[in-house]
């Protein structure tokens, strides 16, 4: 009898193992709301991964799997907005593993996304887009109009964005390709890489490197503390370049026939190298500063580079 009890116990235990995945898995969702009269979609997700895709249809769908700690998916129209939120009780937030959601929405609606630690992918949204995540990567493709992508600890990859573009992260890299319009890139600790057709470019970095390939610059403004900046650019007629660095090196590589007034200054050390003309830097009579002023062509554009102790090279 004891042996029978043992076998029954073992069988019960084995049988219960089949139910564990079901009880621990999150709830699956597949819901749709019509987007008539809606102009904004607002999405909040604590953690996990969210994919947001714009389409031509006139409804919003949410598919995926909620975190197993989630109480419910809030998916409702309030006035002219559709709100999508994964509701997780406060006490369970630390243990939440994350929801995986795919959201399709009309491409021409505004979209706001907020998260603590979600990765997010966005594609084909042609109205204003705002993404804020604290810890999570952002991957964006084919967005237009006013675009703001911000992470505190996470990297940003962007491709084919156009309009007023603002990408920022504290600890992470920014990689941008084929952007167009007005581009603003900010990183504290991480590298910035951009191949862009944007005509107005503003870049800030504290301790990472900057590498830019810009095809048509009307205005370029770079501020950095200790990283190096290497920029290859086509400076348009009447264009303006301003670069400031504390201790990082700045290298600007212009097109062959650049016509600009160049003003380079190193305030406390740092070498100034001119590979465009034969003009050399003048050292100050007293103190460690040196300056290099010269012109190329009809000097219709302006290049001003200032460093405390980094090196400056123009070629």
């Amino acid at each position, binding site marked *: 009898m004891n042996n029978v009890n043992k076998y029954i116990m073992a069988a019960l235990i084995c049988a219960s193992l089949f139910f564990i995945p079901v009880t621990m898995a999150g709830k699956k969702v597949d819901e749709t709301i019509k987007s008539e009269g809606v102009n904004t979609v607002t999405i909040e997700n604590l953690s996990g991964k969210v994919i947001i895709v714009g389409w031509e249809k006139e409804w919003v769908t949410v598919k995926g799997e909620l975190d197993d700690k989630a109480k419910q998916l809030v998916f409702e129209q309030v006035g002219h907005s559709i709100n999508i939120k994964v509701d997780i009780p406060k006490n369970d937030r630390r243990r939440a593993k994350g929801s995986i959601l795919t959201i399709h929405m009309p491409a021409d609606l505004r979209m706001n996304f907020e998260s603590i630690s979600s990765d997010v992918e966005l594609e084909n949204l042609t109205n204003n887009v705002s993404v804020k995540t604290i*810890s999570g990567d952002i991957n964006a493709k084919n967005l237009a109009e006013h675009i703001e992508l911000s992470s505190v600890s996470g990297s940003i990859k962007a491709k084919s964005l156009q309009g007023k573009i603002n990408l920022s992260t504290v600890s992470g890299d920014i990689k941008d390709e084929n952007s167009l319009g007005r581009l603003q890139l900010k990183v504290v600790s991480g590298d910035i890489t951009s191949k862009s057709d944007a005509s107005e470019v503003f870049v800030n970095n504290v301790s990472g490197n900057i590498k830019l390939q810009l095809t048509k610059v009307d205005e370029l403004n770079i501020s950095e*503390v200790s990283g190096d900046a290497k920029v290859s650019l086509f400076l348009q007629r009447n264009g303006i370049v301003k670069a400031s660095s504390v201790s990082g090196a700045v290298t600007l590589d212009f097109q062959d026939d650049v016509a600009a007034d160049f003003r380079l200054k190193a*305030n406390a050390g740092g070498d100034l190298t001119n590979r465009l003309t034969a003009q050399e830097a003048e050292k100050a009579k007293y103190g460690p500063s040196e300056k290099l002023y010269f012109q190329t062509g009809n000097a219709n554009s302006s290049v001003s580079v200032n460093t405390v102790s980094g090196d400056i090279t123009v070629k």
Partner: protein
Amino acid sequence: MNKHISDNTLLSYVDKLPKEMEPQRDLWQGIEHAIQDKKQQNTFVNKQRYFVPAAWAASLIAAVLVGWVTFSPTPQITEPLVVSNENVLPSNAKQLIETMQVSFQQQKQALLVSYGQPDMSHLSANMQAQFEVLAQARKTIEKALLNDENNIDLLNLLRFTQQQELNLLQQLYPYMNDQNIQWQTI
């Protein structure tokens, strides 16, 4: 009706007029004031080339100071600047730099107080290093400004590094103790 007056008669009328015409009130005070203003304006125009941008920066900082001074404790600047030759630096340029430093310290202190004076060691090593980089950059720029206090580019760079540090505080401290955040290691 025109009455023809002879020249002699006219001269006699003129002789009877008072030699002086006194104004209804004392105008000398206003004239002295105007002369004083013009002297100051001339001084201002001469220095305008150097201090218009600096005055713009100072007024911006002053506006921030007015907003913060009621709520912030008086900061203790524990790292006094070493000035090689104080006679070289005009007092108002030096004042601008000091104002920027004081303003920055006040804003930083106010932020830290609002976050409950958090413990920096709770941040990841990378983020702590960023604060070090920014603090070091500030010191480097401040030192360079001692030799070239009218350098607007350096002043802008100083403001940039100060603003980066304040931005970093605002972005990191609210989430410092949040277990949901996995800090990426670069």
